């Protein structure tokens, strides 16, 4: 690739959605969850998505993460039109490019923190030693290096979510998708998680898209978009 081409790629938005529509069948009824959505997210952005329940936030996140497919439109992430990928290719793409942070953490209770963080590395060809090293580096980044051998049941909610974040970043993904990352935490623990996300965005250049109901959490993001009835806007609907 030439220097000009590299520069062009850098200038492209990391996330580019064009005319994305998502229809669901509920019985005989067809529900339009996303309505011809356009969205551009620059590389290094920290975007909060807010909106009432059922507005389509999670559906949009699932489409961005390749967990769901649009009924119509294009989803281009880092120059890759992911809506055209097969299920298998999409899995591989997710493993390389996306880190998910879930509201309910989704940690395996019988594995310790280090093993949970190392899970995505099972899909790589790294040696056991290298995997361990990377898992420990991710845990150190989230401030839990001394809890590496602890199981989720031995951690607080905030610590569990930190392990979840460490797992999301251990493969050094292009995009971090966080679905209500503080939704299950008290304010103090939630703030710590938000600070950590800010750190990952500002100091490590991670592009983050975060779904939240909490205006306090959204305030930590660089910008906020509001979603209502499948449509994105700059301001909440009155």
């Amino acid at each position, binding site marked *: 690739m030439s220097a000009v081409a590299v520069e062009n790629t850098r200038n492209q938005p990391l996330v580019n959605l064009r005319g994305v529509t998502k229809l669901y069948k509920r019985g005989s009824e067809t529900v339009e969850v996303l309505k011809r959505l356009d969205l551009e997210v620059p590389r290094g952005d920290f975007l909060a998505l807010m909106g009432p329940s059922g507005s389509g936030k999670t559906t949009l996140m699932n489409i961005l993460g390749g*967990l769901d497919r649009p009924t119509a439109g294009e989803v281009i992430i880092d120059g890759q039109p992911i809506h055209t990928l097969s299920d298998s290719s999409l*899995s591989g793409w*997710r493993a*390389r490019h*996306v880190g*998910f942070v879930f509201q309910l953490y*989704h940690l395996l209770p*019988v594995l310790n923190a280090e093993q949970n963080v*190392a899970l995505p590395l099972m*899909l790589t060809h790294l040696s056991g030693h290298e995997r361990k090293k990377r898992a420990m580096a991710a845990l150190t980044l989230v401030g839990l290096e001394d809890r590496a051998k602890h199981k989720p049941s031995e951690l607080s909610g905030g610590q569990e979510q930190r392990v979840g974040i460490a797992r999301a970043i251990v493969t050094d993904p292009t995009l971090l998708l966080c679905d209500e990352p503080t939704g299950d935490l008290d304010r103090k623990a939630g703030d710590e998680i938000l600070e950590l996300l800010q750190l990952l965005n500002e100091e490590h250049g991670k592009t983050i898209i975060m779904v939240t109901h909490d205006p306090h959490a959204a305030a930590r993001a660089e910008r906020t978009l509001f979603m209502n009835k499948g449509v994105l806007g700059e301001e909440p609907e009155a």
Partner: protein
Amino acid sequence: MNALTLIFSAYRRRKARTLFTFLSVVVAFMLFCILAAVRQGMLGQLKISIAERLDTNSKVQGLMPLSYYSKITAVPGVTAVGYFSGFQGHYKDEKNKFQVVVTNANELFKVYPEFNAPPAQMQAWLADRQGAIAGPLLAKRMGWNVGDTIPVQGGPAQKDGSTTWYFHLDGIYKTTLPTAFQSFFVAHYQYYNQGVANVQIQNMVGQYTERIDDPRNVTAISNAIDKLFENSTSQTLTQSQVAEAISFVRQFGDISAMVIYVGMAVFFSMLLIIGNTMAQSVRERTGEFAMFRALGFKRPWLGWLVLRESLLLIVSGGVLGLMLGYEVTHMLAPYVGNLLSTFSMTWSAAGLGIVLSIIFGLLAGLVPMRRITHLQVADALRRG
């Protein structure tokens, strides 16, 4: 960390459930083993019987004079005659019971060519009036070696009043017949006959076995033998071993078949319950599998993980069950040997057991595997 770590971590999730599921598999396959041994005991009677061999027994469940031997030998078509008697004794401890068979050693291997021993051991035995040969399993169980003197206690009283009979172990025989035939202790009739105190059993035998030249002559030879003694005090009944086995199978076959059918129904029911437990275990982890999908794990990889989880549990439980079942059938064999002399677990039954465990492992894993490979990731993540 690899797939095996994930599989064992899934087992550790609910240790009690995993343990009970595993034990259910073990018990199911032990049951399978015992049923296979019962079936072998039924069918084995037929398999080891050959049409060229006849058995002559007393018509009234008693002993027959030894003098019949020369008369039977003279019947045209009879090529060899063995006579058998014996007693049940024990070695050192009453728990170590076994059957002492006494016979005319020089004819034994002509009547039963399925048995043999190294020539040197055979010669030593034939030359030793007090000698005996033992089956390999019996010798192993008792810890005997060739050359040992074996005191067998609990036999009939001898002329000096002793009930302990001393034998020299001259050889260990070999046989291609099932396990039950590998635990005989065979000694000389003459030694026994000359030593036993009870005059009513002196010069008497329990059974004659004849080898004949042509199986087409079974009826004629049987009739000829019985005709010889029809006017004596101890009338005989001679029939081919095949006819005896068929009669045995007819007599006990229905009961045995019923036991086998009920047992198989229990076996399959247990496996259905195990399959359901496996499915439930995977259902409870739907959220985790959705997380795996979100991390980038592919459907086939996760499906294979679930299948391996099921296979490993059921096949390892199955193999352990078969091994324990083998031991149990071994322990039971002396107790059921009189009725089912071929009661034993065969290699083919063990092979079938392993194949069945693989099939059940696959079947038990298929439903949860399908569930995982068709998982709607977004929905499953939301449900947690």
